[in-house]
């Protein structure tokens, strides 16, 4: 069992983390920071664990390291590390980015002990269903033990990216104090910290280039809000990216404007909804070099500004001056009269996110008709069919959907015919997530289950790696997925299937399956046990509100000693005390974790 060989497609956030990109951006701008592009010059002392290899072996390892430094992809590295002990050691010494898809699959001591020279850590914690309140508070995934260990083991640490972890203000303060070369902090869907932690990072990370806070739950007692923006160094900064859309309290605008003014390298700025459109204009004028802009509210906030309402022409001239903009998002309130101000940049846009704006077709059309280069587009259904037609007509890179690689679509109801059409038009799909919000909804024209539609997706989209199904679904759809979805790595199931057969099909047929999350589906112990042969190859299995019993879960735990099997959930066990409400199982090199809350039982 190797270290994580996860197969998930990379989010935009994690894609930025491939070491190649890291090196190229480190050569720009001032500041120190050991360059990731020349690991040979900064190779750290080798730690011997076993007998030193013979001399010729030593030479070979040196050569090997010179070669392996060019290997960026972690799956390639995992493979290389399995060749022999020499390769294992060489690979361990040259791995610069440590990706840990499940923080409980390995311990800090073990991970840091093996990879002694890493400069970047990507760490993921809670299972994805935690985003939907299915994982109770206090379950775990704390950053504390990791940052404490890294403070000792990685004084040269440069980058940290955390997803669904609990990060405290104390953790952030320790991070800020411990790593003098620290440059990139990205927090996605995390919680546990507030403005005090941000203040520590701003103040102490003198080489900070990236501070991206994405959809975190930033907790602040009203009395404790800290003016963190003011804590950045008063000299010119190295900031390249600053995103704080999820910080719910207003920031000190004067300080923000001054910060932007003294950050010549700033390329990405995403502000929260407390920044008015007038204030946004000020920021844009200070930073015409921006490539990514999150606009905040995009409306006038009467009390905050104090000044007169912003003239649309003034806003438009700010966009005219922003010749490098390729990615536009935000629009949290979007006063429609300001939307035309973005016309000057539309032709250059590669990504447009209007998913927080209730834009109508009339408002959208003049915008979208100019967005010839759009590759990524988020929008709400308020634009209607007419709006989407305008999109299809203009956006050649989305047009005919032939090149579409990812669809995430929420609807009340759907037909098999429409899904089949999608499968034929978009054969390059890598991600298909369809959420029919009405549970157990059949095809609203034929009354049939949605099996055939999703079946067509797995049949025709031969590159599909991520799939989420919904609507009325029988065991049949899982038979299709098992038969055709040979590359599927992530599968999300809700309110679907008839029997254990569904689960058996998937676990026996989807050989690449890494992550399986299931809710409210009638799958029981027999289905669970049919995956025994495969669980060591997966990152995790999550099941809630199914038909599992303690007996079945215990059997899995007994037969697979390197699996951690957690059960938890409702205490309403009057009817059937053997019933398991929530199951989360995952492979681990270190056995049961020691921070288990009272409501979790590890079998």
């Amino acid at each position: 069992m190797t270290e994580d060989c996860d197969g998930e497609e990379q989010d935009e956030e994690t894609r930025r983390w491939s070491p190649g990109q890291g090196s190229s951006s480190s050569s720009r701008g001032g500041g120190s920071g050991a360059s990731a592009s020349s690991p040979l010059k900064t190779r750290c002392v080798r730690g011997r664990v076993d007998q030193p290899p013979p001399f010729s072996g030593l030479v070979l390892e040196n050569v090997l390291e010179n070669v392996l430094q060019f290997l960026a992809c972690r799956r390639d590295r995992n493979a290389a590390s399995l060749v022999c002990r020499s390769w294992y050691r060489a690979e361990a010494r040259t791995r610069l980015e440590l990706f840990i898809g499940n923080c409980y699959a390995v311990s800090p001591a073990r991970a840091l002990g093996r990879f002694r020279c890493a400069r970047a850590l990507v760490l993921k914690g809670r299972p994805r269903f935690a985003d939907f309140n299915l994982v109770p508070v206090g379950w775990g995934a704390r950053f504390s033990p990791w940052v404490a260990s890294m403070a000792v083991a990685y004084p040269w640490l440069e980058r940290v990216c955390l997803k669904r972890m609990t990060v405290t203000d104390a953790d952030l303060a320790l991070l800020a104090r411990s790593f003098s070369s620290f440059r990139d902090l990205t927090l996605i869907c995390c919680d546990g910290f507030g403005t005090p932690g941000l203040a520590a990072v701003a103040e102490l990370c003198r080489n900070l280039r990236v501070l991206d806070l994405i959809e975190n739950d930033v907790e602040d007692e009203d009395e404790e809000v800290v003016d963190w923006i003011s804590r950045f160094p008063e000299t010119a900064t190295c900031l390249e990216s600053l995103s704080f859309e999820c910080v719910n309290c207003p920031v000190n605008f004067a300080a923000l404007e001054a910060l932007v003014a003294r950050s010549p390298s700033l390329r990405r700025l995403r502000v929260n909804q407390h920044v008015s459109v007038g204030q946004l204009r000020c920021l844009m004028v200070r930073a015409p070099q921006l490539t990514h802009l999150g606009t905040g509210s995009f409306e006038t906030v009467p009390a905050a500004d104090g000044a007169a309402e912003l003239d649309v022409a003034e806003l438009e001239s700010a966009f005219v001056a922003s010749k490098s903009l390729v990615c536009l998002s935000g629009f949290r309130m979007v006063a429609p009269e300001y939307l035309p101000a973005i016309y000057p940049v539309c032709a250059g846009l590669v990504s447009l996110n209007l998913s927080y704006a209730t834009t109508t077709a009339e408002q959208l059309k003049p915008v979208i008709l100019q967005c010839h280069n759009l590759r990524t587009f988020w929008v709400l259904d308020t634009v209607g069919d007419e709006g989407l037609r305008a999109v299809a007509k203009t956006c050649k890179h989305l047009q005919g959907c032939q090149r579409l690689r990812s669809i995430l679509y929420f609807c009340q109801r759907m037909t098999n015919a429409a899904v089949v059409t999608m499968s034929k038009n978009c054969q390059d799909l890598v991600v298909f997530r369809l959420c029919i919000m009405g549970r157990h909804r059949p095809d609203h024209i034929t009354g049939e289950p949605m099996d055939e539609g999703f079946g067509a997706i797995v049949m025709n989209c031969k590159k599909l790696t991520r799939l989420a199904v919904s609507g009325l679904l029988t065991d049949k759809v899982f038979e299709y997925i098992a038969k055709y979805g040979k590359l599927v790595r992530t599968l999300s199931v809700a309110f679907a299937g008839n029997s254990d057969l569904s689960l058996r099909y998937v676990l026996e047929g989807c050989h690449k399956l890494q992550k399986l999350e299931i809710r409210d589906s009638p799958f029981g112990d027999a289905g669970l046990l049919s995956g025994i042969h495969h669980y060591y190859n997966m990152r995790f299995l999550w099941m809630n509100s199914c038909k599992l019993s303690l007996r079945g879960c215990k059997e899995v735990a007994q037969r697979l000693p390197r699996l951690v099997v957690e059960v938890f959930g409702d205490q309403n066990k009057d009817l059937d005390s053997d019933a398991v409400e929530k199951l989360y199982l995952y492979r681990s090199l270190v056995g049961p974790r020691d921070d288990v809350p009272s409501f979790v039982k590890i079998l």
Partner: protein
Amino acid sequence: MSTTETGCSSTEPEVTGGLGYDETELTLSLPGAGGSRPSETDRKRGFAETVGLNLGAASRGEDCGARSSDSSDGPVSSALKLSAAKAQVVGWPPVRSFRRNALRSCTYVKVAVDGAPYLRKVDLEAHGGYEQLLVALEEMFSCFTVRYYPDERRLVDPVNGTEYVPTYEDKDGDWMLVGDVPWKMFVASCKRLRLMKSSDAINLATRMPQACTNNK
């Protein structure tokens, strides 16, 4: 709860059985509004509306009447009420809270639990009444169960038997027991929630007896 042949989830409550697809219709209607049930051939409902107020049929008029007389009901009907409340399914549709908050005006309030180091937030408007709110709290702090008393409800930690009384701070800064005032009044005036250990709650303002029948 048994599984039907069409593969309905085991959490589909039998108490509201027979409602078919209407039961799963996620609509804008406020609790007690009764009003028009959306028909199957109805127009597409907006994403923002749907995500914004995630109310199932169980939160509508027919249940409100039942709830107002819950003061004398025993555990059986409590279970029924709980399962009716659970027809509003946790975490469905699967939209992150950041997006949910962003798409609508916020009646999110913080929930503190005595003795616990973390804060959570709950959206008052997302629930049709006190029952559903308690269910949501129960789900959030999954170690707790709801215990029904004649005049109030408490949350219990079965591990150590500690009882928590849901309390809230209103606009005047007073700490009140949850359940005292009509639901809508509560939503409008509640600034934050606190699950107070019942041993500490004895000093809270006592309730007017007739307040129970106003509860929704």
